[in-house]
């Protein structure tokens, strides 16, 4: 009962000419995506659960917690966001634990496009990136030119990374080429910014669809594939992330190209984060254990990581009173 998909014949042959024949027509693309091996749902869930039972202690835990902090995309995506809140968040991203200078900074802050300027101004040259959600986030229900304008706005304001959402309606009704073209167009609009493609796996219904969406986004040139917006339940889960990790692993085997993975939403405790890291190591490989290739989209997770970190360094349990709320 293995869930490991072998790279299909079509994938390997497609790799040679960077998928141009696969994406040449709607039917070729459908043939390719539906030709991907199916996901054994029970097996995938069992494996994800099994990988979650590893015991990570002492120095390994120290390492995992610091790594997880470096991987966090500290996120605030609320209608009630203010400039002040974004500034506070950006400051927290640079120095998550003001009491401990050895605590690493997070990878990025993730905000709505209109907040990019504020975030950028605060972060300056700290090395913490600004990620902006674009393309009519979170529903993705807007005309293409609006989505592209949204993306350009964010990039012009200084966003280093763009988190786009795919058109789930088009994907679910089988209009794969439309989704593909949209990703390609948004990538072009991104210019130098990195592109993360959000699938909203909670709306994709099946694991097979998650695997198809992963390949579709990777072929279209996304730098990262991301599970969810955080606005739909269920958000990131271990099995879904595992399937995406398998996809990036197989994609590298086929093309030599490395793609990052970002689970987002619903990861709240250090324990959960460490489960994800174990899975990254076991499924995709240690190459992905780096903030350039794996990220957590989270807000409350950071505080729990900081509490655990404080516990590891001081030897006593910490409490939520000692960390900022957002």
């Amino acid at each position, binding site marked *: 009962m293995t869930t490991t998909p072998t790279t299909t014949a079509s994938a390997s042959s497609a790799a040679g000419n960077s998928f141009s024949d696969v994406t040449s027509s709607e039917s070729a693309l459908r043939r390719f995506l539906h030709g991907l091996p199916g996901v054994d749902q029970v097996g995938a869930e069992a494996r994800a659960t099994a990988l979650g039972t590893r015991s990570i202690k002492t120095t390994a835990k120290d390492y995992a917690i610091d790594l997880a902090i470096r991987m966090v995309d500290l996120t605030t995506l609320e209608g009630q966001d203010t400039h002040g809140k974004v500034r506070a968040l950006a400051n927290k991203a640079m120095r998550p634990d003001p009491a401990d200078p050895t605590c690493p900074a997070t990878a990025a802050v993730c905000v709505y496009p209109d907040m990019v300027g504020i975030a950028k101004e605060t972060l300056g040259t700290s090395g913490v990136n600004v990620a902006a959600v674009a393309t009519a986030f979170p529903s993705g229900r807007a005309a293409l030119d609006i989505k592209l304008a949204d993306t350009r706005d964010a990039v012009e304001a200084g966003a280093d990374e763009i988190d786009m959402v795919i058109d789930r309606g088009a994907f679910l009704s089988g209009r794969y080429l439309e989704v593909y073209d949209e990703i390609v167009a948004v990538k072009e609009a991104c210019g130098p910014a990195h592109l993360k493609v959000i699938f909203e796996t909670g709306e994709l219904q099946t694991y097979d669809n998650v695997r198809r969406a992963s390949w579709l986004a990777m072929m279209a040139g996304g730098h990262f594939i991301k599970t969810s917006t955080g606005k739909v339940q269920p958000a990131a889960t271990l099995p879904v992330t595992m399937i995406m990790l398998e996809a990036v692993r197989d994609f590298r085997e086929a093309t030599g190209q490395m793609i990052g993975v970002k689970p987002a939403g619903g990861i709240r405790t250090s324990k959960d984060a460490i489960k994800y890291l174990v899975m990254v190591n076991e499924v995709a490989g240690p190459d992905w254990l780096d903030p350039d290739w794996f990220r957590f989209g989270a807000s409350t997770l950071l505080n729990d990581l900081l509490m655990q970190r404080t516990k590891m360094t001081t*030897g*006593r*349990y*910490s*409490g*939520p*009173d*000692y960390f900022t709320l957002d």
Partner: protein
Amino acid sequence: MARIDVRKTYKLYIGGAFPRSESGYSYVVNDAKGKFMANASLASRKDARDAVQAARKAFPGWAGRTAYNRAQIVYRIAEVMEDRRPQFVDAVQKSEGRTAAQANKVVDEAIDRLVWYAGWADKITQVVGGANPVAGPFFNLSTPEPTGVVAVFAPQESSLLGLVSVVAPAIVVGNTVVVTSSYERPLPAVTFAEVLATSDVPGGVINVLTGSAATTGPWLASHMDVNAIDLTGVAGDADLAKSLEEASAENLKRVRRAPSAEPDWSLDPGTDRMTGVLETKTVWHPIGI
């Protein structure tokens, strides 16, 4: 055919549930004559951590209830205890090596103590709070508020009356409690937890750990999310008491120091166990606007 014994598993009480110890450890509990009675869960540091988490979670809801409602709930604990009297009498008799009559008296006193403390819930504010005369055109009002999560070490000798006498004052004024029971006499505490679970006390308000204060103590004393600590159960162990006091200093916990010997619990308890876990909030308000 002889019936097979249905033996009870004595478990911890954390967040309204009865988990076994996270560590998987248990220890043998003997009665006063040294005869085997049961295996009790041996609480570990992680159980203590989980209990503090549960207590913290329960705190806003419990502190936010009206004093009147807290009184009703504490009174309800007394009602349910009365209902399960034979079980308590039996546990006290065996654990403390008392006669049936003595044990009955202890259970009476424990139930009465709960009723007594229940009455205090809506009166303590008037007694320790009030309007302060100030030299200016202001109302100046002081009100007591619960301090937060209280770690309590229950007395080692008096396994029921002592336990009730240290837990009730902390919760009745709105705190939540993590209590480590008597090490050698934990069974009345487990039965008491079963009463709590069925008497409208919200999960997490009282968390009962069975095991040794030497194990859970250092973690609770150094825990930054615990606001007060009651070392009554560490009476007689000056070294442990000292180290727990030192560890408590880090986040300025309120500390109730360990007495040199266990007090006589049948005496009038006074109000200091309640006032010791209260903070005073004072509000200034201009007169005449």
